């Protein structure tokens, strides 16, 4: 709950507006106090003494009162609405910016659906609280204080009668809230889980359908929704019980006031108009108290939402620029690994004692069994993760001393799984360099052997490719990623199994273009099809997280080891068959 205080901190930049709002709020709360006074005046003075003129005054008093109230409350509500939206805007913006700063390891362990929920549902809830419930709450607190003062000034005995039920209110509230709060929290968690599941199963619908698991999935999701339902019911019942008791307590208060007030009138210590005014006032006194219960529901939800949003904001990105980090303007492309050890969770090492020195302009191939650590190895160059031991140097400078952005701008990565966005082809290619001209985009597409295909589409470069490029074949997606990477003219290019879905002919075309394009640039290529990498300057063989061999193709093929085995396996059948063919 103390997080709410922090939320209020977001109001600081709008201090002036807040002060104005508070002032307006004070003015507005005066109206419920004034109206009963008018009534009292009418009943006690105007009517018994038959003052016709005063009756006209009453008329204009009311109109004037509400005209002023209307003006002020419009201004107030508008202002508050604006403030709420503004705070939410700031919060959402900050959260998103922060999410963008967080490193990949954050995303590894969280479901996108849940991260989404922070930015959408949670923040919406907060907004609802800030510009809805919270304001009412403030107004209520104000009017309760003012009313109490007025009541005691008017008739302190009656005021005591009105106030004496308030402890019951508090007690009632305290008793119930203890049970409601944990439920709210649980409810929220379940809801989150539901979002996670929904998300995943909608994204993975292909698999669901391929295994004809539609019914199973529906049942599965329904189970979670059902859990939600049960919890919500329990929570709601408790809340309503709390409300029902509050209502009774309120009637008790009103009854007491009328009873005691009536007695006072009989004793001629008071007039009826005053009692009626009191009746009006205590309504304004108890109403907020009942509302407080409702506000409590909002507050529960919002409080939890605030907690989670701040939790996200408080997660520190693991990878940040060192305070004195430098920008490398023109990277030459020398990369050096010194005694690098790395594990994703710090406990189970994936890479051991990696030592490698790569000269600018070299093409380095990385091969090895699946799961050996190849992707991990090259991910370290772009500093997606920080290493626990050892150093990675680029152009002789420790990676941790260079500004992240300046490295990543100069490294082109085509990752194992192509990720595209649902914008037109052109924009996808241009993602790495927004200011590229159409001609440059076209060139990049040509290099990736895509130009012809795109031209054949009715909308050409403006074709929309669907979410994550779903309307393209996998090979086309890979080539899109390649085009996107080459457009940025990277000093270091990393191709992580980036041509696995290409036939050898297309692959050869792409490779030829890349060779020309990347003359003098360092490149890292991971591939399982050995024909892809045979003419690399050096081939690094990784097995079990260690570099087990380094050399050119002909060197490696000549000596027994992982590479030779892979080679034999891949060409065994070819040799056999060509032998047959020779014999035939």
């Amino acid at each position, binding site marked *: 709950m103390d997080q709410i205080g922090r939320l209020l901190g977001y109001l600081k930049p709008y201090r002036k507006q807040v002060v104005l709002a508070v002032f307006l709020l004070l003015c507005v709360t005066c109206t419920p106090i004034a109206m009963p006074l008018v*009534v009292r005046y009418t*009943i006690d003075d105007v*009517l018994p003494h038959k003052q016709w003129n005063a*009756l006209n005054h*009453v*008329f204009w008093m009311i109109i004037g009162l*509400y005209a002023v109230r209307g003006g002020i*409350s419009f201004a107030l509500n*508008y202002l508050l609405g604006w403030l709420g939206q503004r705070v939410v805007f700031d919060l959402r913006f900050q959260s*998103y*910016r922060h999410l963008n700063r967080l490193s990949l390891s954050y*995303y590894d362990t969280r*479901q*996108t659906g849940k991260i*989404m929920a922070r930015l959408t549902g949670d923040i919406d809830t907060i907004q609802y609280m800030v510009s809805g419930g919270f304001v009412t709450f403030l107004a209520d607190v104000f009017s309760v204080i003012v009313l109490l003062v007025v009541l005691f000034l008017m008739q302190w005995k009656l005021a005591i009668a009105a106030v004496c039920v308030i402890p019951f209110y508090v007690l009632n509230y305290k008793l119930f809230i203890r049970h409601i709060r944990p439920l709210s929290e649980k409810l929220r968690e379940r809801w989150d889980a539901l979002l996670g599941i*929904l*998300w995943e*199963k909608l*994204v*993975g619908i*292909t698999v669901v359908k*391929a295994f004809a698991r*539609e019914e*199973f999935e*529906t049942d599965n999701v329904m189970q979670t929704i059902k859990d939600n339902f049960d919890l*919500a019911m329990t929570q*709601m*019942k408790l809340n309503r019980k709390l*409300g*029902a008791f509050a209502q009774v307590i309120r009637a008790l208060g*009103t*009854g007491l006031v*009328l*009873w005691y007030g009536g007695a006072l009138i009989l004793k001629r210590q008071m007039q*009826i108009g005053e009692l*009626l005014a009191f009746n009006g006032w205590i309504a304004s006194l108890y109403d907020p108290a009942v509302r407080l219960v409702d506000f409590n529901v909002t507050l529960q939800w919002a409080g939890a939402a605030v907690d989670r949003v701040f939790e996200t904001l408080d997660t520190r990105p693991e990878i940040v620029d060192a305070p004195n980090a430098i920008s490398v303007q023109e990277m030459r492309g020398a990369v050096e690994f010194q005694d690098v050890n790395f594990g994703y969770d710090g406990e189970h090492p994936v890479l051991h004692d990696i030592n490698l020195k790569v000269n600018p302009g070299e093409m380095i191939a990385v*091969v090895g069994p*699946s*799961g050996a650590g190849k*992707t991990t190895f090259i991910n370290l160059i772009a500093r997606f993760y920080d290493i626990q031991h050892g150093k990675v140097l680029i152009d002789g400078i420790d990676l941790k001393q260079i500004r992240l952005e300046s490295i*990543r*701008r100069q490294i082109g990565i085509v990752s194992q799984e192509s990720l595209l966005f*649902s914008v037109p082809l052109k924009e996808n290619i241009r993602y*790495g360099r927004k200011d590229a001209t159409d001609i440059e985009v076209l060139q990049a597409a040509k290099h990736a052997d895509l130009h012809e295909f795109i031209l054949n589409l*009715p909308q050409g470069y403006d074709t929309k490719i*669907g*979410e*994550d490029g779903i*309307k393209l074949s996998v090979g086309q997606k890979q080539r899109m990623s390649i085009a996107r990477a080459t457009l940025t003219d990277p000093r270091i290019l990393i191709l992580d199994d980036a041509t696995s*879905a*290409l*036939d*050898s*002919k297309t692959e050869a075309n792409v490779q030829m273009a890349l060779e020309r394009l990347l003359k003098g640039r360092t490149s890292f290529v991971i591939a*399982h*099809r050995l024909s892809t990498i045979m003419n690399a300057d050096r081939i690094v063989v990784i097995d079990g997280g260690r570099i087990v061999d380094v050399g050119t193709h002909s060197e490696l093929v000549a000596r027994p080891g992982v590479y030779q085995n892979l080679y034999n396996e891949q*060409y*065994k059948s070819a*040799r056999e068959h*060509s032998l047959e063919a020779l014999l035939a």
Partner: protein
Amino acid sequence: MQNFRRFIKELRAYGRIMLLSVFLTLITATLSLPPPLVVKYLTDHLSTGALQNPSLRVNLIGIFGLLLGTACLSAFFGYWLSVCLTYLGQRFKLDMRRKLYAHMQTLSLGFFEKSQTGKLMSNITNDVAALDQLLSGSLITIVQDTVTLTAVLCILLYQNWQLTLVALIVYPIYILNYLAFIGKIKFTHHEMREQRDMMYGDLQEKLSGVQVVKSYAKERFEVRQFIGETRSIMDLNVRIGGMSTGLWTVAELIGAIGTALLLWYGGREVIRGTMTAGSLMAFYGYIGGYLYGPTLRLIQINDQIARANAALWRIFKTLDMQPNVNDVPNAQPLPPIQGSVHYDHVWFEYEPGQPVIKGINLEVKAGEMVAFVGQSGSGKTTLINLLQRHYDVTDGKILVDGHDIREVQLASLRQQVGVVIQETILFNTTLRENIRYGKLDATEEQIIAAARAANIHHVIEAQPKGYDTKIGEDGTKLSGGEKQRIAIARALLSDPRILILDEATSSLDSETEALIQEALDRLLAGRTSFVIAHRLSTIVKADKIVVMEKGIIREVGSHDELLALDGVYAGLYNQQFKVALEEHAA
């Protein structure tokens, strides 16, 4: 409006509980009526004039009892009313979500390709929630307030119809005011929702593609873009807020005029002696709390109705979406198959006018291994997607064991055709559950056997938690090849009669691949298999190699036949084995 009619129809199933709610509403509404009458009683009995008259005895304890009694009753019934309403709303949400989600599940892949996942999500979550608000909040307010309004109007008219008419003079202005604002509010609301959906869609995409955003150091760009979107949403929201407040404020003002008129006119009557002060006070109480209040509330509800209307529209749009692939009315389940497949003049297009498969003819005998090679984008994946009937052919037909696949039950077909799709999709549970997805009632031994065959068992065993390791969303914590092997294990577990491997081993090194191949040969003996691969070593021993090019079949034959043909395949072969062949020749 049409949407609402349909909505009401949906509500039929909840008729009983709704009736109960309405009944309870009537009770609580009635129980809320006494307080102004109490005021009247008190005023009439305790006014300065009345106090002179000793014959008028005032029963204060009775008043106290009455107030407390009605409050207790009203709290009791109110509680049950809330329970009913909550149940109704929650139940409705539950059923609606089930309906929506189940319906989405029946839709074919084409639908999902066109919709952003974020929007679908919001359909199930936000839109349904908006309906719940309408149902358990607004609808009841409408009933309750209408009841109160009528009851109070009757009481008032009966007591003093002239005074009532005076109080009602302002009503037409009320309504005019309402009409003046509402159109605009509705419109803006719609616009806002639309923008918000768009933002959600974008957001989701960029969050799942965060690796790309980071690779290109585009964080700042994305944030800037996001600001633009949220800012325009904020502006719209502020505008809506402004308009609603305006509507509300003016309504309140009009109400005040009515009250003022009442006190003025009623006051004259009291002075004249034609009415008691108590009656005036009762009027005052009823008008403020029971007439204008409910009317104001009814007006405010409109905001919610506008929202619900938009939600209804979207929900029904989804529900009305028909799957393009459907069981024909009297479809029979596909009996256990041998596994022969016949593509008969198959044409197919994703977008009208752009055929992707152009008249393919292909006979596959049961038990054969068929390999597909060919340029990227030539239609290989499409061809096998057709076999699982994710799409229907545009022309021609596909026969499995002589059954046209459009005439058998979809589920029975897919259960017998197992596929490892090109882009591996795994779920965020444990390794065991991911593999088990292929066969939900598989035993532990079967799971392990499948994992062994996919050559992933030893990797799983090496994990600290073994088969209980959670693998992160879409298997982020696994390497590319490990994911593929899990997917293979999953498909193997389902024990299909026809197995399709769409580049299922592209991320595997050849040695691992060979091990898997060996296991597959053993497990799939006698089963039909379709294998797509670019690494030719994967497919040299296929019974039949199909070379595709731009949607047609260029060559078919065994490896040796195709080499002898010296066509496209031979070209690919030479390209890939150039070095090896040269070395061999040397």
